[in-house]
């Protein structure tokens, strides 16, 4: 991959640290472990540092850090999370049966050792969090694969935070995939070949001749690779990266993966079936850190605007792309949690809930949000406590997250 002079782009994922970090990985880790809490405690939160940590080698390192940093990357106030969905969230939803069908088939996404009963609880939560977000946003349409995103969030941050994150992602990063049709998604996929063309014309031409199309990368894109990676830790690493990046970044990673397999591709029979077959299967041993670095380089060298110009991609408007700037701006003025906790509490007692406390979530919610999310809350609460006594881990994990945040959050969780 040839290198052009790298320019900083507003995606904010500058490829720093590569020099030092690659040589002394431990050093990078230690440095991150110190940097991240510092960034979290800055006022306003040092979002640039958090983004850089999420994108650079090793990502956010631990789930504990993920639970703290992921919400910040999406500008979510952890002291003002949506309530647990009530039973009625499942009533009369047009996507209900599709969601159930997909979630019931999603066993592979859960840790291997997890007891079936525990997984079953999480699967029920998964159905609920998907439906509650869809219900709050009638303009969003469920797609098969959305559940792969939701499950990744659920497993890391727990039910209520997962709702908040899924909600924001659906309005921004995943927005194009949630149109009534997949036309916008196809449009996003159309960025793939122009990237390849810039870097390796021969490979590009080969793929064009094979008529392979880009559907092999469809599940990569719309699930952020959650659907195709056998190892959850790799999925998490990529989620760190994508949460800190431009919504088109999954396409740049797709390009990096195809380029990485260039030899294999060229040696395959130049035939749609063969090339599709080869590419749609992700090899076990992909060097993710390397590929992440390369996708960032590709992004910097061939930003979407440039590709759009060259490949006549402008004709269609992508909501994810066009709202990205605004989204990024909204992340710039977050208060640290210590302040948020105070403010949120104070605000709760003085002003109405409709006061816009933070940008994303609140603004888009219907007025009866509290009602919608609150109903049946107590029932669920009791059920969860009952289960936690016998089942432990899943619920405990959530509770632990909450412990990190203090009793306030714990109270909100149940």
């Amino acid at each position, binding site marked *: 991959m040839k290198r052009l002079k790298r320019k900083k782009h507003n995606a904010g994922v500058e490829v720093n640290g590569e020099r030092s970090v690659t040589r002394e990985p431990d050093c990078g880790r230690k440095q991150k472990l110190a940097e991240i809490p510092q960034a979290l405690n800055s006022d306003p939160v040092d979002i640039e540092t958090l983004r850089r940590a999420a994108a650079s080698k090793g990502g956010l390192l631990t789930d504990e850090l993920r639970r703290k940093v992921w919400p910040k990357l999406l500008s979510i106030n952890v002291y003002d999370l949506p309530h647990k969905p009530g039973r009625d969230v499942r009533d009369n939803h047009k996507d209900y049966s599709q969601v159930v069908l997909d979630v019931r088939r999603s066993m592979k996404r859960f840790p291997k050792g997890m007891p079936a009963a525990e997984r079953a609880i999480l699967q029920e939560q998964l159905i609920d969090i998907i439906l509650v977000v869809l219900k709050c946003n009638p303009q969003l349409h469920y797609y098969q694969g959305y559940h792969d995103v939701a499950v990744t969030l659920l497993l890391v941050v727990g039910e209520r935070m997962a709702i908040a994150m899924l909600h924001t992602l659906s309005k921004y990063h995943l927005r194009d995939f949630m149109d009534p049709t997949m036309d916008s*998604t196809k449009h996003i996929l159309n960025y793939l070949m122009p990237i390849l063309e810039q870097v390796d014309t021969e490979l590009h031409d080969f793929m064009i001749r094979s008529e392979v199309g880009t559907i092999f990368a469809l599940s990569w894109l719309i*699930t952020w690779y959650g659907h195709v990676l056998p190892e959850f830790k790799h999925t998490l690493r990529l989620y760190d990266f994508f949460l800190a990046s431009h919504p088109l970044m999954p396409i740049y990673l797709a390009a990096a993966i195809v380029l990485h397999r260039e030899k294999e591709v060229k040696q395959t029979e130049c035939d749609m079936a063969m090339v599709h077959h080869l590419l749609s299967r992700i090899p076990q041993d992909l060097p993710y850190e390397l590929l992440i670095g390369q996708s960032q380089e590709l992004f910097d060298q061939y930003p979407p605007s440039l590709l759009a110009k060259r490949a006549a991609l402008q004709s269609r408007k992508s909501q994810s792309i066009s709202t990205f700037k605004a989204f990024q701006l909204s992340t710039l003025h977050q208060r640290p949690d210590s302040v948020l906790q105070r403010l949120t509490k104070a605000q709760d007692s003085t002003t109405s809930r409709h006061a816009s406390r933070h940008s994303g979530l609140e603004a888009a919610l219907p007025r009866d949000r509290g009602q919608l999310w609150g109903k049946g809350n107590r029932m669920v609460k009791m059920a969860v406590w009952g289960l936690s006594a016998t089942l432990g881990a899943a619920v405990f994990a959530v509770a632990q997250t909450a412990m990190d945040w203090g009793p306030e959050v714990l109270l909100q969780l149940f």
Partner: protein
Amino acid sequence: MAERGSTGEFSGSLTSSTLPPPRTRIFKIIVIGDSGVGKTCLTYRFCAGKFPEKTEATIGVDFRERLVEIDGENIKIQLWDTAGQERFRKSMVQHYYRNVHAVVFVYDVTNAASFRSLPAWIEECKQHALGTEVPRILVGNKCDLQDSIQVGTDVAQQFADAHSMPLFETSAKNPNSQGDGSCGNSDHVEAIFMTVAHKLKSQKPLVLSQPPGGSPGTINLSRGRDDSGDGGRGWGCSSC
């Protein structure tokens, strides 16, 4: 597709590529139907010989293939397992309708809605120039769930007749003993796809090169599949 495949310098992943073996013809079959009817399970069973423990939602299109021998000829059967959710059909799956040799429509015998969707799927195929001239079959899956059947054989057979397709009722999960076990001991799913392959092989103009060897009409399922004795009738399996 088939043209390129069969004239190819080498033939793909299944054979090693030093010298082209006697050219392998490729039959490309697309499998469509509502989400959850069992398309992935059926194609997996045919290609891997067993019911998958865990399937997942198919996103876009999955591809499976298997090399079979029919009347002494090696044939590669390519199955394109498509996503059932409607939104994928329109703009995504399109691409894969091209150069298809046969279509397998699948519904779930325990789900009436999946049966009611069939006209839409058939229409969809027509729009991609896959009309009656292309071999098409209808498969009612999940026959093992005898207690929850919503689509009777009669009504399915009528529908199949009206669209001049053969009907097969089967189970990807348990294709050997359906209901009362009338289907004998052969792998029924395999028989279904092999039947399509035979049909394709017997169709002269379909794929280039050597004239088809098998005598048209004879269902001679290789690999001893015809040993259950009810050869031609077995796949009807009107028991369920």
